[in-house]
């Protein structure tokens, strides 16, 4: 028990937890995108709604939902904890500093991009998950998506959030490989391909959906 508690409170242990929860959230992103793509199917949302009903009613999904929320909260909590302790570790700033010459902006702003994504998630979960699950008003999920994406303001917020998510993952994916000790020279091509998939391809495909509902309908 002592080993486990010292692991979770140590700097390296907290980073490893960030990497593990980060990978878990990335795997959720893939599933989420796969189901969202059914919104593009020309069947008035029938297939999408079938999946949405399945996710809302199938009993085995409940524990997975709880694990997913726990993963999100853990990732956000540890991220905040690390940010605070890291600020304490460098109490005095340099008068002259040139961080752009030794590190990327994405790596230095991962906390802030993550914080914005967290705010987006609160809004996003409230718009779709909370309203359909706890305030059933007879609307199907497809109708809910259609309604939400008729607002240019909401679509803009969604697109900005996706840009922040992309920037967060630009640092996060390769960083998780590094933290989990998987970043080796022989896997470099594979890791770079996975990073591009997560930070560029997936957010770009996600961005197609609000634009499709706003512009094509």
């Amino acid at each position, binding site marked *: 028990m002592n*080993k*486990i508690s*010292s*692991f979770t409170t*140590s*700097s*390296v*242990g*907290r*980073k*490893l937890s960030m990497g593990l929860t980060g990978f878990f959230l990335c795997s959720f992103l893939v599933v989420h995108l796969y189901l969202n793509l059914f919104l593009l199917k020309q069947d008035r949302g029938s297939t999408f709604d079938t999946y949405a009903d399945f996710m809302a009613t199938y009993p085995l999904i409940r524990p997975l939902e709880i694990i997913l929320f726990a993963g999100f909260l853990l990732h956000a909590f540890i991220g905040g904890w*690390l940010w605070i*302790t*890291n600020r*304490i*570790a*460098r*109490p*005095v*700033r*340099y*008068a*002259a*500093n*040139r*961080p752009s*010459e*030794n*590190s*990327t902006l994405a*790596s*230095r702003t*991962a906390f802030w991009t993550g914080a914005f994504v967290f705010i987006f998630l609160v809004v996003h979960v409230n718009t779709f998950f909370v309203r359909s699950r706890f305030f059933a008003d007879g609307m199907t999920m497809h109708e809910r998506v259609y309604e939400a994406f008729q607002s240019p303001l909401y679509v803009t917020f969604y697109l900005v959030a996706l840009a922040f998510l992309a920037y967060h993952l630009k*640092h996060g994916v*390769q*960083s998780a490989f*590094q*933290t*989990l*000790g*998987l*970043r*080796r*020279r022989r896997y470099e091509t594979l890791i770079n391909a996975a990073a591009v998939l997560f930070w560029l391809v997936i957010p770009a495909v996600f961005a197609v959906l609000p634009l499709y509902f706003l512009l094509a309908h």
Partner: protein
Amino acid sequence: MSESMTITLNVWRQKDKTSEGRFVRYTLSGVSPDMSFLEMLDLLNLDLIRRGEEPVAFDHDCREGICGTCSLYINGRAHGPLKGVTACQLHMRTFHDGDAITVEPWRARAFPVIRDLVVDRSAFDRIMAAGGFVSVRTGGAPDANTIPIPKPVAEEAMDAAACIGCGACVAACKNGSAMLFVAAKVSQLALLPQGHAERRQRVEAMVAQMDAEGFGSCSNTYACEAECPKQISVSHIARLNTEYLRAKLL
């Protein structure tokens, strides 16, 4: 003989650990482009002594880039603008006549300023004392090839062993993290057979001491690798993470 330069220096002055520090501006002429950065500071100190002022305190020893004693944050970069170079091996030809140069001490909670540009880096010594050694009896030097070590492994261990413990990694990291230093030491010993016996205790003890000293966590910005005068790779941090996970969970 190259032409001499006139430099404006903005130097951090601080009487002792508890005093408030401030920047003091000095204009220094007669600086040769062939001088090292430390020789330029020597020239400044001679000038200050001549004027009856207190000279600027800064750490230095070998002045050959191998001891890791010099520790200056020059114009926003640890050890100055050149890659793979300590401040003592930085020459004034890197700068131009009339340049203004800001010189600061390493900034990290675990490296408190003792005086002017000198910081207390004994936290590194305590991390080493916690586990950065081999305590098993290894006997005398073995004959060549008695312990076979594949060439790439030996090379990687030697790359890690190149760390001079200057603290530039901590200084450059926005989190004041000592991960590259600790990783180099853990990695060097974990790679070689002599270090295998204690690898689990070593990584646990060194990480615990690193945290106790108040260093921050690594957030993989890789500023440490970019500023390390010995160009220690962050791949050693990846190895440290694996070593730690293995020690804690398996």
